[in-house]
């Protein structure tokens, strides 16, 4: 701030205090103005309305038969939807959770046991695991197999072998009807 001592400041002490007050007020108002101006610019970089409109995806599960798998796109990533057979559900539940690299019981990863919804991106380095198409190698646990570095996932999408550190991520989703889910 101005070094007031340099100038010929006439007037009583009250005058000086009022001047300091005015300068302080002016500075405070200026600072508020600058901050208020900067925010909209920063906000233009946040996801725009058209991007946000694609933030949720609704999926109709009715056409997916038992044992069938479906891939949908969500926020630019593939989501694996598996209509699990009773054998697959049993294999997912009959596991000693503490033996897993990333311990999670199957019940914590599904809302309805016959539907598994996971993000189809390997948690190692981001490749898309095989297993969605008929004839794909599903790995020795009947789930998914990542061809890039050999990670193997089970029927709950949990990591069993290979270098991936974590289970396939479960995206936020809800059942909006018996056979419809809304992801995101």
């Amino acid at each position: 701030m101005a070094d007031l001592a340099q100038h010929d400041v006439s007037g009583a002490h009250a005058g000086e205090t009022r001047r300091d007050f005015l300068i302080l007020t002016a500075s405070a108002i200026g600072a508020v103005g600058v901050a208020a101006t900067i925010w909209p610019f920063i906000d233009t970089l946040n996801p725009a309305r058209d991007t946000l409109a694609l933030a949720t995806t609704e999926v109709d599960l009715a056409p997916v038969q038992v044992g069938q798998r479906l891939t949908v796109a969500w926020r630019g990533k593939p989501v694996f939807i598996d209509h699990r057979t009773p054998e697959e559900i049993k294999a997912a539940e009959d596991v000693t959770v503490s033996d897993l690299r990333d311990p999670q019981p199957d019940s914590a990863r599904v809302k309805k046991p016959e539907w598994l919804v996971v993000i189809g991106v390997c948690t190692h380095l981001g490749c898309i695991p095989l297993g969605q198409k008929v004839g794909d190698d599903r790995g020795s646990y009947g789930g998914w197999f990542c061809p890039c570095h050999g990670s193997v996932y089970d029927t709950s999408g949990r990591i069993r072998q290979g270098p991936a550190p974590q289970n396939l991520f479960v995206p936020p989703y809800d059942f909006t009807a018996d056979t419809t889910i809304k992801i995101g």
Partner: protein
Amino acid sequence: MADTRPGAMSRIIRWIDYRLPFIQALNHELNEYPTPRNLNYWWNFGSLSGIMLVVMIATGVFLAMQYTPSSEAAFDSVERIMRDVNYGWLVRYAHSSGASMFFAIVYIHLFRGLYYGSYKQPREFLWILGVIILILMIATAFMGYVLPWGQMSYWAATVITNLFSAIPLIGQNIVTFLWGGFTVGDPTLHRFYALHYLLPFIIVAVVGLHLIALHRFGSNNPLGIDTKRPQDTIPFHPYYTIKDLFGLAVFLLIYAYFVFYAPNSLLAADNYIPANPMQTPNHIVPEWYLLPYYAILRAVPNKLLGVIMAFGSIFLLFIVPWLDTSPVRSARFRPVYKWVFWLLVIDVIALGWVGANPPEGLVVTVGQIATLYYFVHFLILFPVIGKLERPKPLPASIATAVLQTGGARLGGAGAPLAKS
């Protein structure tokens, strides 16, 4: 003992400043810098210009993050900014209104220079740098207007680039080269975008030179006489910092009115129609700040001569310091020139009106007279009035003039536009 943390900070600053004296330089150039004590509010427009340059670059960079410079996508990307990008409408309107504000301020700044003789010795080069900045601004604004790829964008680009075909022999080749094709199109849009992004930074560099040239001799003042004694000047800070801040607040009010309440009042409706190379708008009109040059261009019946006169009207400004023969700077002491100056102002406004309207009837006549007067004013009146006029006697110094008329009148804000 004093708290060590502020001490450490100022020690670091002093360490850097000893090796790269930026703090000392800033302190001298902004803080202590001796400025004439009698500057009036017409001197606010220099700092306002600088601030608008920063505003235009800031809004421009954030627009550039969302804009797509291709002929298929440009118009839609601008609409996306207006509708979907958070506060996109604000940044876009700030940029489009800002261009108008920037030119208004710079024109007032220029006319201030003409009235008070700020271009006269020893500030001729300061003036020349200013004219260079104006030319760069016009080029930048012209290219920027093409980017939304509306009807006016496309056709203004076509008309103005076609001007170069007036050059004998090689004209059409130059135009094809400028276009990068056989009409204004995608290649043209791409290069205009690149140059529109580049030129403002060249303007920043020239503004830097402009400020260095200014600080060589200091500001002119309303009396037009040199500062001689320490009593003639006051330090820039806090006197002119606060005065500039006040002026900035008032200006921002006007700017805010345009951005928030009348953003399309200065724009052509046709530019909200996507560019159609198969259909020309009924009236091709440039933005208001280019209207006078457009009027001069159309006033001359010969194509090549019209181009020369239009460009000439700007380049003429370069030699103003040598056209004016007056021994005295400020129009305050020039009884004849003081009124003739306003004739130029009226003339330029008239040229603007001519440029805005279709060239028929009264518009043509006024356009020709106004164009003629413009050149007569600079080429004939400037030298002749300077020689024949008898200037009023100048005060002995700024300080004596200020003390004689009472400090409050010249320095205070009570009569900001008052001139003797």
